[in-house]
């Protein structure tokens, strides 16, 4: 099993996301994360899908997705030639004693504190998945109350 990141450019038609996710579920392909958003041309939507599978399954995924009428383009975003970013919001329990510790961990990771309450705070972190995983592991010692991750968006480097 290997992980692959696919970048799709699709026609911004009604139901396009459900057509794509439906294809994955009915053919038994896994979706680790999926993100979608408008592009510079409002007719198109950019979708980034992280999926897992054997080589032949990944090849089938690429072909089956390419076959969908709404899909203009699908390509693999290879780690060495792409930029991936994910946004993560983490709500952590924090008291006066623990707050400074959290601040310094956040600073090391260049995370932002976006909300502070008497007994909790929310940290915003952007990065690739491994950075976010590492950060979550670190703040594990403080009590994590909630996590919201977006899944990655990605672009290939260069032209």
């Amino acid at each position, binding site marked *: 099993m290997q992980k692959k990141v696919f970048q799709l450019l699709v*026609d911004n038609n*009604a139901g396009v996301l459900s*057509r794509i996710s*439906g294809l994955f579920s009915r053919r038994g392909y896994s979706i680790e994360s999926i993100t979608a958003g408008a592009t510079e041309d409002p007719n198109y939507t950019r979708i980034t899908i992280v999926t897992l599978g054997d080589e*032949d399954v990944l090849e*089938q995924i690429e072909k089956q997705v390419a076959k969908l*009428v*709404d899909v203009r383009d699908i390509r693999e975003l290879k780690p060495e030639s792409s930029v991936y970013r994910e946004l993560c919001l983490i709500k952590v329990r924090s008291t006066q004693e623990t707050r400074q510790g959290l601040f310094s961990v956040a600073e090391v990771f260049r995370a932002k504190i976006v909300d502070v309450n008497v007994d909790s705070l929310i940290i915003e972190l952007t990065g690739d998945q491994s950075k976010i995983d590492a950060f979550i592991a670190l703040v594990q010692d403080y009590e994590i109350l909630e996590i919201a991750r977006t899944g990655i968006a990605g672009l290939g480097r260069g032209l």
Partner: protein
Amino acid sequence: MIGADAMVKCLELEGVTTVYGYPGVAICPFYNSITDSDIQSILVRTEQNAAHAASGEARVTGKVGVCAVTSGPGATNLITGIATAFADSIPLVCITGQVNSELIGSDVFQEADITGAVESFVKYSYLVKKVEDIPRIFKEAFHIASTGRKGPVLIDVPIDIQNANFKNFKYPESVSLRTYKPTVKGNFVQIKKVIKELEKAKRPVICAGGGVLLSDAVEELREFSHRHRIPVVSTMMGIGAMPTLDEMYFGMVGNNGKAYANRAMNESDLIIMVGARVADRAISQPDLITENKVLVHIDVDPAEIGKNCGPSIPLVGDAKHIMQDFLEQEFSCEHEDWIKTLEEYRVTMVKQRTPDENYVDPAAFITMLSEEMQSDAVYVADVGQNQIWSCGYHIVKDGRFLTSGGMGTMGYSIPAAMGAKRGDMSKQVIAVCGDGSFQMSMMELATIMQHDIPVKIIVLKNNYLGMVRQYQHFTYKDNYSVVDIKDGTPDLEKLSAAYNIPFIRVENMTDARAKIQEFLAKDNTMLMECLIDPMDLV
């Protein structure tokens, strides 16, 4: 003009002559408008058969079949027909009525999310949201259905859109689908590679699938095979790509196919698959067919190539184009020994049957029927033991062999035969089904009589769901569970009389030929019942 008039106009401009369907309130504006058109409406007796009939017509004419039904249950009843067409890549445009746009999602009477429900077995689907989109959507739907790998497209039209005023109707001359551009022309480098392999090959074989018929590449295939003396086998969907008795044809492959066809595949050193999926019933061990041989896989759908086996030479494109490109190549190949070997297999590796003389032997009967049929007749096989016998013993000359191959939908033959006959009234059309599959669509006898569609129906009657009984015989040691249909099956003679359909019964082979001749004598609807051995195996 209203939306419904525009829908009918679009169909006229697409050259549609027949719409199969069943009305209901949500599609009534359309069925009101269609009365002003020359398009004929065939009223089927259940919606599933509207799709099958459209499929039969599409397969005979090479055009897109059209059906139109109402919302809710009308639309959901259509689903099996759509899935059947999808599995065999048959081009259909299926129109469904939908409840008022503003009520969608509120679970009102006869509302069903049909675009959602059919998503996994349509090539594409549309829910029309604006009346002015109708011409574009219809144009695109016919284009998508009939190009690349063909298939069904669904258009769901809410009743308020059908009733909305429409000004300035203009049908687009071409489609502009930024995201849909199927590859038709084969890559020249790959074509050259295939020719090189053919020059080297000692034991080449072409395996023809349904794609050869769908892309109208039959003549090119035959010419290519004959010119270079390359043996051809076929999948079930590819039956008819070569005449059965052609010297270069070596039968249907697969677990229900001819032993010599499978042997040809196994012993070959070069297999050229054309328009075939390498599906489970045709190739039981796809990973083995690439062992010690070169596999060329030609398909218009790139996703089929490499799905079940990794070909040595993938070649994406339309079978007709690629066959034409092959024909333009000058080369020679030499493998007379191989042909001699296959000819020997074809004679010696014939399945021996021991039919009970008290019954009609389906194998001998089907061959006899083929001999008596017109040479360009359309033979529609249903699903079950009858299908396997039909594949094995029907002799295709210049006609067509239609069946539900991918989905294996029982009840396909009668409605598909109706559509095939409507598609070409000059052709003799014969549906061959079992007593199980007959009862799945016998309501269509009413359609046949109402619309005067002279198809011939043969029921091979063994009082069992024979294919399942056979499976239970081998797998569950004759513990026959829920397969006995003897007690409920109606007297077919009386049933035929009720519909005013002439009836013939054949009890054994002694007078079979005379009865077949009587059955085929006139271009009329007739029903023939053949009593076959309930314990017979395919």
